[in-house]
């Protein structure tokens, strides 16, 4: 019987998966363009806010001492409370997968295939993700190596080919927005995409070697770097007003780039980025959700038996998630309020209970050792 621990991945592969995961929808949706030319400052503030939260995630993994995440949650919380916590996380993971797929299908409908219904696009995207999940974490990690090379390569090409269109004055005036607006925007960037890394809580134990702190903080550092490049490229090329007005700023940025005088209209490359990183993000969400659901159903070693019902459930969530693209973008304003309990409150509760259990275990072992024989 296979478990997650039978397929260990290296910590470097885990870092790559975190980068691709954070890259996920942000590559097309943009990184909160509301603060326009100050978005890069908000990104740095969001990264700073993420540090303590990532520390909590890593601390939870440290307390688990190499054991499976959901098994530990059940041990720490007991039967029913543990199952409620797992159910909450599973809901978040599966709905996040549905939202990412919906982003993809709306994007494809708006920019490329306005006459094609979204359901076939969702099915094809989700089927590939389900296949990756069935193939387990090792295959997803190997896919992420290829995916990261493709996405970073395309990102470098898009940056180099827009250099001629970049205007440094687009970054001015710096700090034009008020502190409350900047903090709100930073909070939104923290919730989407940084704190979505809560998806990695059940996965980090698959990295057999390396500290969870290093994995999370390296992932945070490199993904901040990648998002910074995306923001600066979009601001410098499009200008703050156009960047704020566009639904898909990265795509619009790619539309105006030219390589020499012979290669233009290469905006399709951005779609490739979205497909590659979006697939990784969806697969990781599905995989984490499947691990949790397998624990709830008490079939932890039979993950491949429950993937297809999960696939159909996510497809249903995806179809029922929004009325249209306008509501999808409106929901981004509400997303931090929806996501905060799953990204911060539930992990903090798990962390506190884990600390308490670890402390009581240590105390009882000291008492047992000090008793005279």
């Amino acid at each position: 019987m296979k478990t997650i621990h039978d397929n260990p991945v290296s910590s470097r592969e885990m870092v790559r998966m975190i980068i691709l995961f954070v890259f996920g929808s942000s590559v097309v949706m943009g990184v909160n363009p509301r603060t326009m030319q100050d978005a890069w400052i908000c990104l740095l503030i969001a990264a700073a806010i993420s540090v303590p939260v990532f520390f909590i995630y890593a601390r939870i993994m440290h307390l688990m001492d190499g054991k499976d995440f959901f098994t530990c949650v059940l041990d720490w919380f007991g039967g029913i409370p543990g199952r409620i916590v797992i159910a909450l996380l599973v809901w978040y993971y599966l709905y996040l997968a549905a939202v990412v797929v919906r982003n993809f299908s709306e994007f494809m409908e708006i920019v490329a295939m306005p006459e094609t219904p979204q359901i076939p696009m969702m099915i094809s995207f989700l089927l590939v993700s389900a296949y990756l999940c069935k193939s387990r974490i090792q295959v997803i990690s190997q896919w992420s190596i290829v995916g990261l090379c493709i996405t970073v390569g395309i990102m470098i090409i898009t940056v180099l080919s827009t250099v001629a269109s970049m205007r440094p004055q687009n970054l001015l005036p710096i700090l034009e927005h008020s502190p409350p607006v900047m903090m709100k925007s930073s909070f939104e960037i923290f919730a989407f995409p940084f704190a979505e890394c809560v998806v990695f809580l059940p996965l980090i134990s698959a990295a057999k070697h390396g500290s969870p702190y290093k994995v999370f903080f390296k992932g945070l550092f490199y993904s901040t770097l990648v998002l910074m490049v995306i923001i600066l490229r979009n601001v410098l090329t499009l200008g703050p007003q156009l960047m704020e007005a566009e639904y898909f700023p990265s795509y619009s940025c790619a539309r105006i780039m030219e390589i020499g005088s012979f290669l233009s209209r290469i905006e399709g490359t951005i779609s490739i980025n979205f497909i590659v990183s979006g697939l990784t993000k969806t697969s990781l969400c599905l995989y984490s959700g499947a691990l949790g659901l397998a624990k709830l159903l008490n079939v932890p070693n039979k993950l491949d038996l429950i993937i297809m019902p999960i696939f159909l459930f996510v497809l249903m969530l995806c179809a029922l998630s929004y009325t249209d693209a306008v509501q999808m973008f409106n929901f981004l304003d509400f997303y931090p309020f929806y996501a905060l309990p799953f990204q911060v409150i539930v992990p903090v509760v798990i962390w506190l209970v884990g600390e308490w259990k670890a402390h009581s275990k240590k105390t009882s072992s000291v008492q047992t050792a000090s008793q005279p024989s």
Partner: protein
Amino acid sequence: MIYVILVVLFAGILCIDYIPRRQVMTRPLRLWYLGVCLFCFAVLMLDQVGVPFPRIGTVLIWMIQKIFGV
């Protein structure tokens, strides 16, 4: 066309995934598998027919507005 795609998908899942693995599933797991698949398939078909299901985004926005007052 969408109906055909959904029916083929559902039939494909049953024929390729469910039937070959039915023997290794316990009875509750089989019931759960078929229940979830049938429910999702029915909801997707009804949604395509035009039954006005409430959208999850609409419900979540309404709840957030009620709870946080934003």
